[in-house]
C-alpha cells in the first residue's frame, strides 16, 4: 500500500508553483518555525521524529544537526544533496521537479535549526530541468519573502543557491560534494574533521539528502509523534522506492518503511516482466548486496534488510529476471565504479580497475580458475580500507554477485560463455 506523504501532491501538475504549494499548506511550517520555535527545539522535534537520512547511510537527521557547534565564529552552511547518482535511484528528481517548494521549505527549516544563513542545493549536472524548477521555486520564495534578508520580519536571513554538478557519481558523497561545491575536483576528504565541524569552506556544514529534508515541513506541521507513528520501531516514516528493471510497472512508490519487498515487486510493480522468473533483486541502489527470490519477504526497513546481509541504501530496487547473466551484471556495475572512482585513494582507484579487469576477462571468456579468489581478495582489500565509502560501494555488489551466483561465474570461466544468455527487450530489428 502506498502511503503518500512526500508524494501527496506530486501528481498535481501545478504543485511546483508557489500558489499551489501554499494552497496545499505550504510554508506554514516555515512560518511557524520562524515565529514560534527556537532552533534547538526544531532540532529536538526532528530528533524525536526519528527521521533518518535518505541518502544512503540512514543517519538520524536531528542528531546530525545537533553536531554543529553552537559557539563556532565561522558561518554555518546547509547543503542539500541532490546529486542522485546511485544507479537504480531516481526519487529526488521527482521531488525537485514536481514539488520543489517542499525541498526549499525543508532546507529553510534545517538552515534555521543549525544557524546557517546560506543554504546550497547541489544537483547533478544532468538534471537541468529539476535544477530549473528548483531555481524557479527559490526565486518565488525570495519574492514572497520566505528567503532573503529579514525573513517575515523575524530578523533571520537566509540565502539559497542552486549549484549543479558536472557528471560525477562521487559528488554524491558528502565530502566530495563539498569539494565540488568549492570548485575543486570532486575528490573525497579524509574524516575527521567531519563536515559538521569543518565542511564547506572549512566551516560547520550539514549535508542532507533531498528526500530527508523534504520530510521536515510535514514533521513540523504534524508533529514528531505523527511521523514516528509511521514505519517500524527504528525506521520511521515513509520512503520512496524506485522500482526498476524487469518489472511490469516500474516507478517510484512511496511506502511506509517495513513494507515487504514482495509487495513492492509483485503488487505495486505488477510482477516480473513477461511473467518470467525472478532471479535477483538489488534492494537499495547498485552498491547494495544483491538478494535472491527467497529473500524478498524481507520488510523494507534499515534493520531488516541489514539482517539479511544487504542494505536499504537509497531504496533503488533493481529487479532482474531469469534471463539475466549475473557475470554480465556484475561487470556492468564494476565498470561503473571504476569509471566513477575519484582516484584519490589507492584501494578504490586501483581496486575498482582490477575488479573490472578480472570481471571483463571472465565475461569475455578469458577467465582463469584463480580469478574468483583474486576477485574476492580484491574486495577484501578494498572494503573498509578506502578513504570514503565509494570503495565499499564498489566492492559490495561484486562480492555479493560473486558469492551468491558463484556457479555462474565458474561456469563462465570453465565454458567461456554465459550460463544464462541475456535476453532483454530489444530495439531495432
Amino acid at each position, binding site marked *: 500500500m502506498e502511503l503518500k506523504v512526500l508524494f501527496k501532491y506530486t501528481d498535481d501538475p501545478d504543485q511546483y508553483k508557489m500558489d499551489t504549494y501554499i494552497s496545499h499548506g505550504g510554508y506554514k511550517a516555515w512560518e511557524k518555525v520562524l515565529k514560534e520555535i527556537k532552533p534547538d527545539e526544531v532540532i529536538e522535534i526532528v530528533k524525536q521524529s526519528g527521521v533518518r537520512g535518505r541518502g544512503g547511510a540512514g543517519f538520524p537527521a536531528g542528531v546530525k544537526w545537533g553536531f554543529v557547534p553552537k559557539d563556532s565564529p565561522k*558561518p554555518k552552511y546547509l547543503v542539500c544533496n541532490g546529486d*542522485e*547518482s*546511485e*544507479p*537504480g*535511484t*531516481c526519487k529526488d*528528481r521527482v521531488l525537485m521537479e514536481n514539488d520543489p517548494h517542499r525541498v526549499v521549505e525543508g532546507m529553510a527549516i534545517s538552515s534555521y535549526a543549525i544557524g546557517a544563513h*546560506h543554504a546550497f542545493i547541489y544537483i*547533478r*549536472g*544532468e*538534471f*537541468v*530541468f529539476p535544477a530549473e524548477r528548483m531555481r524557479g521555486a527559490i526565486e518565488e520564495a525570495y519574492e514572497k519573502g520566505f528567503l532573503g534578508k529579514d525573513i517575515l520580519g523575524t530578523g533571520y536571513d537566509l540565502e539559497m*543557491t542552486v*549549484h*549543479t*554538478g*558536472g*557528471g*560525477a*557519481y562521487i559528488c554524491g558523497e558528502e565530502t566530495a560534494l563539498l569539494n*565540488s*561545491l*568549492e*570548485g*575543486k*575536483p*570532486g*575528490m573525497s576528504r579524509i574524516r575527521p574533521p567531519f563536515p559538521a565541524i569543518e565542511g564547506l*569552506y572549512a566551516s560547520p556544514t550539514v549535508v542532507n539528502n533531498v528526500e530527508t529534508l523534504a520530510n521536515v515541513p510535514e514533521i513540523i506541521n504534524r508533529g514528531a509523534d505523527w511521523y514516528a507513528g509511521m514505519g517500524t520501531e527504528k525506521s520511521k516514516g515513509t520512503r520512496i522506492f*524506485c*522500482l*526498476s*528493471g*524487469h518489472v511490469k510497472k*516500474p*516507478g*517510484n512508490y512511496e511506502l511506509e518503511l517495513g513494507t515487504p519487498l514482495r509487495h513492492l515487486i509483485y503488487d505495486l510493480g505488477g510482477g516480473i516482466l513477461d511473467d518470467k522468473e525472478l532471479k535477483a533483486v*538489488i534492494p537499495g541502489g*547498485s552498491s547494495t548486496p544483491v538478494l535472491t527470490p527467497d529473500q524478498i519477504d524481507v520488510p523494507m526497513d534499515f534493520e531488516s534488510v541489514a539482517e539479511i546481509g544487504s542494505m536499504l541504501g537509497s531504496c*533503488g530496487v*533493481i*529487479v*532482474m529476471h531469469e534471463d*539475466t547473466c549475473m557475470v554480465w*551484471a556484475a561487470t*556492468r*556495475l564494476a565498470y*561503473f565504479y571504476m*569509471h*566513477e572512482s*575519484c582516484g584519490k585513494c589507492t584501494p578504490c582507484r586501483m581496486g575498482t580497475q582490477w575488479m573490472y579487469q578480472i570481471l571483463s576477462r571472465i565475461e569475455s571468456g578469458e577467465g582463469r580458475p584463480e580469478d574468483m579468489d583474486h576477485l574476492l581478495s580484491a574486495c577484501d582489500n578494498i572494503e573498509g580500507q578506502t578513504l570514503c565509502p565509494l570503495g565499499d560501494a564498489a566492492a559490495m555488489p561484486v562480492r555479493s554477485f560473486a558469492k551468491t551466483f558463484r556457479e555462474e561465474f565458474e561456469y563462465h570461466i570453465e565454458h567461456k560463455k554465459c550460463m544464462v544468455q541475456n535476453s*532483454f*527487450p*530489444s*530495439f*531495432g530489428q
Partner: protein
Amino acid sequence: MILNDETVKKIKATVPIYPQRRSCILPALTLAYWQEGHLNDDIYREISDILDLKTVDVASAASFYTMFPKAPVGKYYIQVCHNISCALLGADSLIDYLAQKLGVKLGETTEDGLFTVVTVECLGSCTTAPVMQINNDYYENLTREKVDQILEDLRKQG
C-alpha cells in the same frame, strides 16, 4: 574570445553568489558548455581570466567532470544510459540501433554535424528506462518508434 558577451555576463553574475570565488568554476564551465557544446583549453583560460582564478584550477576541475565533452560534438549530443537499469531494458540494443540508424560509431559525429552518440553512466531516471539525454533534455521510456520520432523531429529542426 570564444565565450560570448551573454555567457561572460552570466559567469560574472555568479561571483557574488558564492562566499569564495573558486566555487564559480563549475557554474562557469556549465555556462560555457551550454554555449559551445563542449569545453577546451582556450575556454579554461578565458574562464580563469573572467573569474581571476588559476587556469590550473579551472582545467583540472573541468577534466574531472565527464558531463562536458572536451572536443566538438554534434549539435545534438545523444547520451544513452548504459547502466544496469537501462541495460536490463535494452539499452545496449538501443545504442546499436542509434549507431546503425545514424551510421556512426560511438563517440563519432554524423557527417551533417547533427548527432553524436555516446554512452553515459546512470542518468538518474531508472524507473523510466531506457533513457537518453540529448543536450539538456531527457527522453524516457524509449521505444523504437519514439527514437525514430525524436531523431526525425531533431533533423527537422536542423
